[in-house]
Each structure stands twice: as structure tokens, then as C-alpha cells.
């Protein structure tokens, strides 16, 4: 074991124990760990703590919070006069996202789409034109509505 060389691996041990690292970094670290019991023990200890930290589940988003956030943004924006004249209706925007998801599903399944009026009320044709593929839009907005899985 080379103490000075071990110092070089200090950060890599933490990086590798806490998440993904580039393959070449992992290969280099693995080579060092195989010949260095002290760094191996350090890696295992960090990994154990990380496992305890990761065990704590993601707190659930309280029911109705997104709607509450919409209202709070409207109130906050009005208070600060940020949206004077802009007239963004956050609640309608949320409904538009749900509608976009329905449109995408309908398109994928070859079903007739539902009435698009709600979407057009909130997200203008100009913005819709920026997002040419409805399925992509629905997926992105669906992520906002329903979560992105493990990685947020």
C-alpha cells in the first residue's frame, strides 16, 4: 500500500460509492482496491453509510399540492405584479398538460383525440408550435405531473 497513492483515490472512493462513475475511473479504482485493504475498507464503510442514506424513502407529494402551488404562484405573481397583463392561469396550464397526455395516448392508439379547446386556452398555438411532437410534450409534462422515477 502506498499512502500518497491512496490519497489520490480518496475522492474517487466517495464518488464511486455514491453513484455512477465513468467506466475508466471505476476500472482504475477497482484495480487499486484489489491491492489495498485499507482503501477497500474505506470504500466498504462509505458504501454502507450510503446504503443507509438511500434507504430513506422519497417523501410523498401531498395530495392536492400541485393545485395549491398553482394558486400560490398566481397569488405571489399578482402580489409582485409579475404577471400584470400576462394572465397566465396555472390551473388551466395543469389541465392542458393532462390534455396533452391524453392527446398523445389517443394518437398512439389511433383513437380520435378529445376536444383540444382546453389546451389551446392555456398554452397558445405559438407555444404548441414550439413543441412539434405531442407525445414528447406529454412525456415531459407527464414527468412533471407524475414524477421521473428514481432520478429527479
Amino acid at each position, binding site marked *: 500500500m502506498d499512502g500518497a497513492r491512496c490519497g489520490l483515490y480518496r475522492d474517487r472512493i*466517495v464518488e464511486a460509492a*455514491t453513484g455512477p462513475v465513468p467506466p475508466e475511473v471505476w476500472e482504475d479504482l477497482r484495480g487499486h482496491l484489489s491491492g489495498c485493504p485499507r482503501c477497500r475498507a474505506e470504500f466498504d464503510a462509505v458504501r454502507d453509510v450510503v446504503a443507509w442514506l438511500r434507504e430513506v424513502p422519497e417523501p410523498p407529494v401531498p395530495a392536492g399540492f400541485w393545485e395549491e402551488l398553482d394558486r400560490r404562484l398566481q397569488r405571489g405573481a399578482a402580489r409582485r405584479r*409579475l404577471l400584470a397583463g400576462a394572465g397566465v392561469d396555472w390551473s388551466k396550464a395543469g389541465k392542458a398538460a393532462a390534455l396533452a397526455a391524453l392527446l398523445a395516448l389517443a394518437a398512439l392508439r389511433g383513437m380520435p383525440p378529445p376536444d383540444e379547446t382546453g389546451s389551446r386556452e392555456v398554452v397558445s398555438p405559438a407555444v404548441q408550435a414550439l413543441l412539434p411532437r405531442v407525445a414528447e410534450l406529454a412525456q415531459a409534462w407527464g414527468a*412533471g405531473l407524475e414524477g421521473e422515477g428514481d432520478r*429527479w
Partner: protein
Amino acid sequence: MDEDERLVRAFRAGEASAFAALVIKYREPVYRFLRRMTGNHEDAADLTQEVFLRAYRSLGRFQGRCRVKTWLLRIATNACLDHRARQRDPLPLEAVAGLASPPETGPDARAERRERWRLVAEAVQALPPRQRAAVVLRLYGGYTYAEIAEIMDCSEGTVKATMFAALRKLRVVLGPLVEG
């Protein structure tokens, strides 16, 4: 030009609903980050609102040097630092260390597990804010060091040093749990 860039341009051109689309797209990652950072829903909700109002004010000046999501999480990190500065009595890490004894063995394994989660969450809460942000982004958000450096507006080297310091503290505090 990607979707977010197009939305930012539309917003600058006066299309307010483009901002609504960005809120819907990114409200969940912003909230989840803040929920882990603050340890409670009420503060996370207040800060989520604050983040998007700050973003609305400054989106016109957004340079596009990073992704919109990265930019929002940077605003969220700064909002947390401001929030922490306003708090009167931050929880000292030593106080958590006193709590982190091995859980009592008993018939109710579920209760034990919940108690363990509480202790671990409190240990994370007791970290200094920047260390906490690095840990939350890495362990719960799955971000790379390069992405965390962008979010925290620092070098990758600083992220590495911050993570090392945070994990060292957590090892000391949670050691009895891990070994128990």
C-alpha cells in the same frame, strides 16, 4: 435548439404560457430537492413557490449557458441557503450524534425501520447547507459531479471535497447505526 430553449425564447417574446409549461415540467424535481433539503413539506412548498417566482423575474436574463433544470436547481440551492440563514436555531450535528444509537431490538421491525429513517434524515438535515445540497443531489437526485458543480456554481474539485467532508461527518454520526 432544444424544447426548453424554444420555450425560453417564446417567453422572452411575450408568450407567458411558455413559463407555465416550464413550471409544469420542472416543479416536481424542484420540490423533491427542496423537500430533502428542508426536511419538511411546509418549508419545501414555500421555497418551491419562491424558486419559480425568482425564475419568473430572471428568466429574461437567462443566458442559456446551462440547462433550464440546472438553472432552477441552482436557484433552489440559493433559496435554501437564504432560508437557512433566516433560521434561528440550526440543528447541530452533535445533537444528532447523541440520538444515533442502534435501534432497540423489538417485535415491531417496521417501527424500528421508520425510526432509523428518521435518524438518518435528521443527520442529513444537520449537515451544513452546501454539504447537504451535494449529498441530496448526488444520492437522491442521481446527478454527476459535473452536474452538481454546475448547480452549485463551483468546481468539480469543490464538489468532491464537499462530498468527502459530508460523508465523513455522516459516517461518524451514523456509525453506531451502521455497526449496530
